[in-house]
């Protein structure tokens, strides 16, 4: 988890189901500067393990996903 502790902002989408985590993450990333890191707190499995990492890969953003508890993830994204 190279980006852990490096985040410039945090987005809490706990309690939100698909498609909200990805849509809100995209919106938050639009406001982020190049090279900045956002931490996304998420408890929607499909978003945390599939759609958000896939979106980051497509955009060329670095993404690290850490499972932090039973059904919760911290996702660190560095904007290219």
């Amino acid at each position: 988890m190279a980006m852990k502790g490096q985040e410039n902002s945090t987005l809490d989408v706990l309690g939100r189901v698909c498609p909200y985590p990805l849509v809100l993450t995209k919106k938050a990333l639009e406001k982020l500067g190049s090279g900045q890191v956002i931490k996304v707190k998420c408890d929607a499995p499909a978003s945390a393990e599939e759609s958000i990492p896939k979106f980051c890969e497509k955009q060329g953003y670095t993404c690290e996903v850490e499972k932090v508890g039973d059904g919760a993830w911290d996702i660190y994204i560095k904007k290219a």
Partner: protein
Amino acid sequence: MAKTTKMAFLVQRLGYKSENPKLALTHAIASQTVDIYLEDGDAVVPVVAFVGEGVLNCKNNQKAMETYGITSTENHLQNALLCDLKILVCKEDLARFGVAEADMPDASAMGADTTVQVVPWETIHAELKGADHLLFF
């Protein structure tokens, strides 16, 4: 060659115990996520328009949770605004039903950057004409 697909979701009716208006909003929000499966540069741009009786879905201070124990269309509208969705409400139909423009749902308290746009039918019609896909609810 990048392609932008415009989708228009037209809500013409009240829910009447159905999920219709909420489905329009949910599908429109979900359409903003499909680009992860599209070719690079391709995009889907949604717009949701409330016309006719459908404008009554847009009244604020709905009491769905208190009355029926379910989330309200207003709540879905607020979430859509939070996601920067373009929401258009027909000005003439609001006037026809006696609903004030000031009574539109607002999501600024949730951190939304956008608001419901009350516009003439002419504007909505132009959006519908420019859409690649038109979905009726």
